[in-house]
Every structure is written in C-alpha cells, then in structure tokens.
C-alpha cells in the first residue's frame, strides 16, 4: 500500500468514523478498552447473533490512530463469525508486530502496516482489537 493511500484511509476514517454511536439496548454487550500509557479510552458495543457478529459500534475519546483503526476494524468484522473475527484480529496483531500476515484479509487494516516502527503508537492501533477480542473470548466461554 502506498504511503499516501495509507494516510488517506486513516484520515478518512478519523474524520468520518463509521459506526460511532452509543448503544444502550440490552442486545449489545459493552466493553471498555483503554491504554494505560496514554489517554485513549473507548467503549465498544457488540451484538452477537449466535456465532455471528451482527453489529458493532463505539464511542469515546481517542487519537486519530485509535479512532480510525476502530472504524476500520468494525467495518471488517461485522457479519463475520467469531472464528473469522479472531483470525482477522490475530492477523492484525501479526502485522503490527512486524510479522508475516495475510494481507488480503486485512483490507483497509493494512494502513497500519508500518505502525510497529512507531513504538508507542502500536498500542493506539491495536486498542479496539484488544477490546473486541476480549468480548469474543468471553462469549465463547
């Protein structure tokens, strides 16, 4: 992915994040996810329909990297099975750790390909993933 494309994707999802809405109804599970080392702080709302992730939304305050990453993640996880979602999440972690990963699977998530070079910002990109992973794992128990 070109540097400029990555930038454009991140800025687009930061300025116009998708699914940024609070959900108070009971079908949604709410999880908070935050970075102990900075001030990013998001609530993620997730609705399962048996094995399928039917909907995800979020709200909160965070930096451009976190907000855009959340928007992209949600876009790519809705309608996936829990297992598919976990696969996506693990591929994203692999990418942010500078390891090999399935590029095709991540789609716009590839915009954070070089984030591992910026130490502290890796946590911003993975912030929503850590929250959603926890929720999925809990639901499988």
């Amino acid at each position, binding site marked *: 992915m070109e540097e400029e494309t990555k930038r454009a994707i*991140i*800025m687009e999802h*930061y300025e116009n994040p998708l699914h940024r809405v609070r959900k108070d109804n009971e079908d949604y599970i709410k999880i908070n996810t935050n970075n102990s080392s900075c*001030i990013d702080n998001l609530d993620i709302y997730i609705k399962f329909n048996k094995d399928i992730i039917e909907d995800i939304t979020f709200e909160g305050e965070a*930096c*451009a990297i976190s907000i*855009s990453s959340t928007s992209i993640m949600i876009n790519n996880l809705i309608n996936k099975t829990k297992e598919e979602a976990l696969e996506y999440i693990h591929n994203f972690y692999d990418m942010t750790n500078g390891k090999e990963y399935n590029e095709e699977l991540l789609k716009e998530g590839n915009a954070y390909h070089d984030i591992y070079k910026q130490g502290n*910002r890796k946590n911003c990109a993975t912030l929503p993933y850590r929250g959603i992973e926890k929720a999925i794992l809990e639901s499988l128990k």
Partner: protein
Amino acid sequence: MNREDFPLLSEDIIYLDNSATSLKPKCVINKMNEYYEKYPANAHRGDYDLSFKVDQEYENTRELVKKFINAKYLEEVVFTSGATESLNMIVNGFFANYLEKDDEVLITTSEHASNVLPWFRLVKKLGIKVKYIPLDDHYYVTLDNVKKMINNKTKVISIAGITNVIGDERPIKEITKLAHDNNIFVVVDGAQMVPHIKVDVKDLDIDFLAFSGHKMCGPTGIGVLYGKKELLEHLEPINLGGGMNESFDNPDEVILKELPTRLEAGTPNIAGVIGLGEAIKYLNNIGLDKIIEQEHKLRKYLIDKLIPIKHIDIINIESDSGIVAFNVDKVFSQDVAYFLNKYNICVRAGNHCAKILKSSVGVTNTVRVSLYFYNTYEEIDNLVMLLSDYEKIVKEMI
C-alpha cells in the same frame, strides 16, 4: 539559564514536560554516584566510618530541607518516596484516626489523583464527606469561595499550593488563617509549588506539606512529608519494621523510636536522600526568586505568541507558574503531542491526573507545556513555529 548543568540539554531535544518531572543536573547525578561508589553503606546502622559518613550525608539533607522550607524542628522533616506517599501517610496515618462520620474535607476539582483518592477511601471507610471548593472563571481558588464552603463539619482543607493542570497558585496563607480560626487543618500538596516558589511553612502556617524530589532537579523515588511536630507525633506509622523501633519483646511491649525515624521504617532511599540534598543546594545557588522570574518571562513570551494563533485554544491565559495548557482546534491532544515528538519536542497530553477537572473546565484532555528555568526563548520559537502551521499538524500527526 544554567543549561550547561544538564547533560540532556546537550542533545537535540526540547524538553517541555517539567511538571511531570524536571531534568537532573550533573551535580545531583554525581552526588548519587559518589554515594554508590565511595560510601555505599546503610544509614543509622553501622559503627564504622563508612556508615558514619552515610549518616552525616543523610542527616545533612534533612537539615537542608528544614532550612529550604523553613521548618521549626528537624524532626518535622520525614523522608518518603514522594508526594504521593507523603499524602497517603497524612491521610491514612493521621486523618483516618482523627476524622469521624460526616466530617467534611474540602478539596478542589483540579487536585492531582494523589490528593483525591486517599480521601475517597476515607469516604468509603469512615463515611466522611469530600466537598469541592468552587473554582472561579479562571479556575482559581478564592478565599471567598473557601469561606462559603466552611461549616462546623469542616475539618480539613487539602489542596495543591500550585496545581499541575493550570499552574495557579492558591492563597495558602490566607486559607490557613481562615482555617485555623475555624479549627480546620490544612494539608498542602506542594509537588508543583516547592520546586518553583519559596515555601515557608512557618510563615504560611501549614499543618502538613507533601512534595517530591524529582520535580525539583532531584532524583526520583524520594520526597518529603512535613508536619508540625505536635501533629506528626500523632501520625501513626503505616510501615513498621527495622530502624524505627526501640524494642519489641512481645505485641504488648512495642516501643517505637522518636520522630522522624519512627516514620522512616526500613532501609531508606539513601542515594535519593543524598541526591535531594544536592538538588536543594543547586536550587539555592541559583535562587528560587530567579527561577520563578525566568519561568514567568518564558511563559509570557510563549503566551503572547500563542494568543494570535486562531486554531489554538488556551485554557489558562493566566497562571502563576510555567504551565500552559491548550488544545489545537479539532485535534486530539495526544495527536498534537505525537506531532511535536517527531521534532524532538516533549510535551504532555492528557488529563494530568486531574480526572475530575473536566466538570469545571469542560475539556477532558489538553496539551500541556510546562517550563522550567533552563528552557529558552529559542525553544519556544521552535514550538510556536510548529504549532502555528495547522495543515502541517494535521498532515503529520499520524
């Protein structure tokens, strides 16, 4: 001024996070190394020359602190790990035994977490009430507002002398006078005050004072608890152990040492204490008057340059120390900090541990620049040049 004293300042870096911690001058680093290299023995323990030397250096710092804050007695100076521990000792060792259900403690919404959470615990444990002195339009504490909050249940006023969010100085002397006329104790969180302005505990008539070494050119992990002697006598040690007891034949016959040793259980942070002494000597040599004067000049220079920039919203046009808190229009504070970091400029983003401030100021997070005497006009020029280019910020923040 005095830039050559700080090893970090020979690097290509602009350090503007002095409220978090200050830089350390070479003399402090050398002094701590001297302890580790030349007389690394325990304090208050050995009967040999090395250990005697340690005791001398250790107690010499106590003397320096006593003079620095103008305490009446040496025993009123207790070494702790920092302002946080000092405040916790004050609350849990003294006030937990003194306060009763429904007693009221006055704080403000711009206090640091370490002057809030210990009180919150007493709310849960004892059923005391924590109330907030309202801040004025500039987020300052006024004597009138303190007066309004006082009633016959008020037992403690616990506030920062200078806050870490806005940098406002509180009228401590007037507050202690009012408080003492009403039989109220005053605890001053001096973490941001002692490094910047002369604090005279006798003149200000402060009952308890807490501060840290690392914000005043000293090492991390060392701080001071000051308390009036007659009050400290009633402060129950939280830590029990070596060095602080006379004898302990059985649970009914535990005899503790006198102040201040009683409150310094275990092997202390000896290098830290000795380093703090050197830091105090260093600050004394420069002179606190000169330090605050320089901070004010630098701050005014920065504020005057920031005011005309349309996309910058300054939270505290006024302030008494070197703190400037602001936001860049529609840019999250953390992103501003990341942007500046690309140019080796260190600033802080966040709520600065004063999470409850948002109820008064209406913003959750800010960018905070905090200046100290060794910062320069050129550094500020660099900062302002970057901040004035909105497009550059947005382009380079990710």
